[in-house]
């Protein structure tokens, strides 16, 4: 079991959200560039190189660790943008760079040996040999685990590779968890979540209202039809409702959010180093409320789960695979 409290790693899509995260008690903040190197590459979101350097400075001044996500896969034959961003992070003094591509990890290790590297969830490393490989080849210091493991499996992995820290998601959006490998949105739009950084890019999302019925579409595909008063979910193919054998259903997963707050003691016992909040695309209000609640829960205070409920997709919460269930 951990002797030190687990680190709370919080999202920031804008400098304002970064301030809100630190104000709410984040131990570390992760953010990214406003370009394709970022798996949350949405219009108007993220940091210019100048804002990013200022964000790193702000974090350091206020006692939070700045982590920069460069978590998409570079183009074959041209990874100059990805390399440039690694160089900017090293120069600005980032606390860590979160990456997934082996070529980029090789570049970062060689060019900036002192730069701390974390393996992004986009790499989907979920077993000991895989984590050992990344450690040995690229000096990966921490791995962000994909949300496909039970707490027992996490404990076993942490014990098997004790010199690599583990970070687990505890709150926020869920998908089918084939991270780094999912092509559904890319198939529908021609824009890849893994290479362009946008799952269900806003430019391809449309909503249509017919009375109280709302239909969501992605490209030429109809994803969902929400009835009167029915809580809505994200317009991603994995949350879509499809007709299968004559029956309408959420074929891949129900729309709901991860809330693993009740499992924090189990994560501590499993040797987890850090807890991550998903949601760089979310607003300041989400960041402030969720971070405040989790910080209190880590400190052992009793928290009110309903305080975060309004921020959850379709109003639903799950502990996901961690406790052996799956929606």
């Amino acid at each position: 079991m951990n002797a030190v409290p687990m680190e709370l790693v919080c999202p920031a899509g804008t400098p304002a959200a970064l301030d809100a995260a630190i104000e709410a008690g984040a131990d570390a903040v992760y953010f990214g560039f406003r370009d394709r190197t970022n798996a949350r590459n949405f219009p108007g979101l993220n940091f210019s190189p100048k804002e990013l350097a200022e964000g790193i400075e702000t974090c350091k001044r206020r006692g939070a660790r700045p982590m920069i996500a460069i978590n998409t896969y570079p183009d074959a034959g041209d990874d100059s943008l990805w390399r440039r961003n690694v160089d900017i992070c090293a120069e600005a003094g980032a606390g860590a760079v979160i990456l997934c591509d082996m070529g980029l990890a090789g570049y970062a290790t060689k060019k900036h040996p002192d730069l701390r590297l974390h393996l992004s969830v986009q790499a989907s490393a979920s077993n000991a040999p895989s984590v050992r490989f990344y450690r040995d080849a690229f000096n990966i210091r921490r791995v962000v685990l994909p949300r496909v493991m039970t707490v027992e499996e996490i404990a076993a992995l942490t014990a098997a590779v004790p010199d690599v820290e583990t970070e687990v998601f505890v709150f926020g959006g869920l998908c089918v968890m084939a991270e780094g490998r999912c092509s559904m949105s890319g198939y529908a739009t021609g824009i890849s979540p893994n290479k362009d950084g946008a799952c269900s890019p806003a430019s391809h999302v449309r909503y249509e209202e017919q009375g109280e019925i709302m239909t969501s579409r992605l490209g030429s595909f109809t994803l969902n039809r929400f009835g009167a008063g029915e809580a809505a979910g994200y317009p991603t193919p994995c949350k879509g409702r499809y007709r299968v054998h004559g029956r309408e259903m959420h074929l891949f997963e129900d729309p709901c959010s991860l809330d693993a707050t009740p499992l924090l003691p189990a994560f501590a016992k499993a040797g987890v180093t850090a807890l991550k909040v998903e949601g760089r695309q979310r607003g300041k209000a989400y960041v402030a409320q969720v971070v405040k609640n989790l910080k209190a829960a880590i400190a052992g205070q009793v928290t009110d789960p309903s305080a975060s409920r309004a921020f959850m997709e379709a109003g639903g919460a799950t502990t996901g695979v961690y406790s052996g269930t799956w929606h």
Partner: protein
Amino acid sequence: MSQSVRTFSPGLLVGLLLRPVPLGVLRIAARPVMDGLIRDLGPRLGDRLSGLKGRLAIVPTGHPVAVAIDIDDGALDLDLIEADTREAMGAVAAVRAPLETLTAMLDLEGMDGDASFFARALHIEGDTSLVMALRYALEDAGAGVDDITGAVPWPFGAALPHAMRVGQRIHDAASRDLATVQDAILAPVRTELARQEARMARMESQMQRTQRRRAS
């Protein structure tokens, strides 16, 4: 699952009260505020709107007017227009929500855009990317109700903070009263709904029993 959203609100009543007022009068009244917002807010939006172009209409539910936001590669222009369909407003995107939801989204203690969307309190039509970009730009600029009140010219601006405090108290009281009214109006519907749900459950149960009997 379903989530209830209060639609019968003081903001809606304000919209209904504004209906008889000619658009021309509202535009003249709002022009100084719009100019103040463009002057103060425009530079704070940074380059989050750069490369984007088009008109976005913000339509408070039940109001006769919408705020038209014209974006042109980072530059901003604001106007009041008649609330209508997105096409009739000449907008590439439209956002419709109760006035309370729109103001709550500007508040750190309130709901973010995603949460309002999940609750079906926020409706988006047209180019979603323009809506998202503006939302992030406004949030990062720290735009809030204070910006709107700060843009109201003297002498009204000077009296506004006090008027807002009084207005907030009236709004809170009216919200409670209207919620009671809404609940009273909906009570028979809810009862009927519960009755129908119980009937459906009974029928499903009967069907399952019949299927089991046939299978055995």
